[in-house]
């Protein structure tokens, strides 16, 4: 099986600030890869480079390659909007469209792409909400506002919205940090389920979350990839002294 992403000599900057330094890593398909590391180490920047969101920030730039299904997403003639459709993103704070209903939140991406057929939309909305483990909780009132849901439900709504446009990859940036333990457990279970058919890359400050949900873990420090390997190995027997110190809380 070919890896989903092959990151080659990736460097990223905000203006003159060099935030990612020569990152080389492969991300496996249909697996969960966790990115961990202290604040400011470049975790978020790294996943934002995977769907060309980094360049949205003024003054931000990159060098190097990100091969997605063997094609460099920074190559000539690549449409970043197309890339972001295939590689969805879920953010730290649940951000459903507050003025839209649950239904419209999920259907928004499709409607933007010109799909108007009601039957088709109904089907996708239902399938996406089911996939996101939210359907049973909202099916009786799909017209209520997305903002009226609980935090955990809102986050699953955002996941359903991302899934509606049939991506291949979900990037998740601290998806549970604003949620209580029960909502967190639901999202984590969902992540495991999604990994059967999607490639998931998750940034998390919660090391135990990385240990629970991921198949592979990457440790970033000061913009460099210090250690990357199977999660079992990283958490039981890290090879690098810095990883050991970060995991055991002996940093700083």
């Amino acid at each position, binding site marked *: 099986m070919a890896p989903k992403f092959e990151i080659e000599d990736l460097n990223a900057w905000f203006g003159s600030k060099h935030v990612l330094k020569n990152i080389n890593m492969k991300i496996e398909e249909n697996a969960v890869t966790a990115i961990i590391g202290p604040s400011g180490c470049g975790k978020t920047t790294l996943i934002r480079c995977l769907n060309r969101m980094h360049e949205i920030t003024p003054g931000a730039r990159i060098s190097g390659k990100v091969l997605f299904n063997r094609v460099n997403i920074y190559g000539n003639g690549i449409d970043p909007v197309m890339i972001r459709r295939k590689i969805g993103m879920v953010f730290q704070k649940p951000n459903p469209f507050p003025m839209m209903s649950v239904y419209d939140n999920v259907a928004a991406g499709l409607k933007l792409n010109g799909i108007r057929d009601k039957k088709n939309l109904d089907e996708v909305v239902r399938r996406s909400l089911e996939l996101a483990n939210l359907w049973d909780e909202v099916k009786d009132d799909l017209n209520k506002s997305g903002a009226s849901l609980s935090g955990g439900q809102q986050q699953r709504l955002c996941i359903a919205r991302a899934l509606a446009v049939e991506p291949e990859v979900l990037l998740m940036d601290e998806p549970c940090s604003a949620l209580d333990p029960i909502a967190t457990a639901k999202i984590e279970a969902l992540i495991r389920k999604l990994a059967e058919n999607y490639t998931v890359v998750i940034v998390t400050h919660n*090391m*135990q979350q990385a*240990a629970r949900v991921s198949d592979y873990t990457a440790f970033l420090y000061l913009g460099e990839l210090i250690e990357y390997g199977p999660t079992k190995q990283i*958490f*039981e*027997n*890290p090879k690098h002294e810095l*990883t*050991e110190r970060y*995991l*055991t*809380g*002996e940093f700083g």
Partner: protein
Amino acid sequence: MSRIIDSGLEELSATLHKMGELAYRAVLAAIIECVENKQVYSEICEISDALVLMADNVEDKAFELIARFQPVASDLRTIKSYMKIAYDFARFGRYALDVSYTNQKLGGIGNCDAWMISHVKEMGEKALKMINLSITSLRSHDAQLAEKVAQTEREIDKMYFDFLNKLIERADTTTKCAISSVLIVRYLERIADHVTYICESIIYIATGRKVVLR
């Protein structure tokens, strides 16, 4: 700044150290009983019971640390290994008790041939030395020392088989002496095995390598 998990790990380490010393005392008493015909069964019994209790306490404390701190990396390896080592130390107490029991029930080897007594004495001294060194290497998680200690286990193994062969060749001893001595050297050989397990655990804590030293 020390981490809040550290006080728990230190508590475990201190308990293990105490266990090591008690285990040493039990084995020492059992060997002296063999060669000098002393009666120390009840003393060893007390130590053995205490060791079992302490091993339970180590397990409870280790569980608490896992539940409260979700340790990883070297912390996790340490806790897992400490649980195993506590069990090994408890086994020393049990084997010392078995030696003492043999002395009590079968009359021991104090009145057997001199070569038997000196063989047991020599094996016992080697085992005690191993226990001592394993306690030292445990205290500082010294993998190199642990690896060295385990080498002595091979010598004890050899002494065990030498003893059996010699006993078969000579065949001029009483059944009582033969049975007592065989049981006792067997227990000593098992003690050396458990020292080796401890050394393997120390190497695992220090390096993450899973080795078999036997």
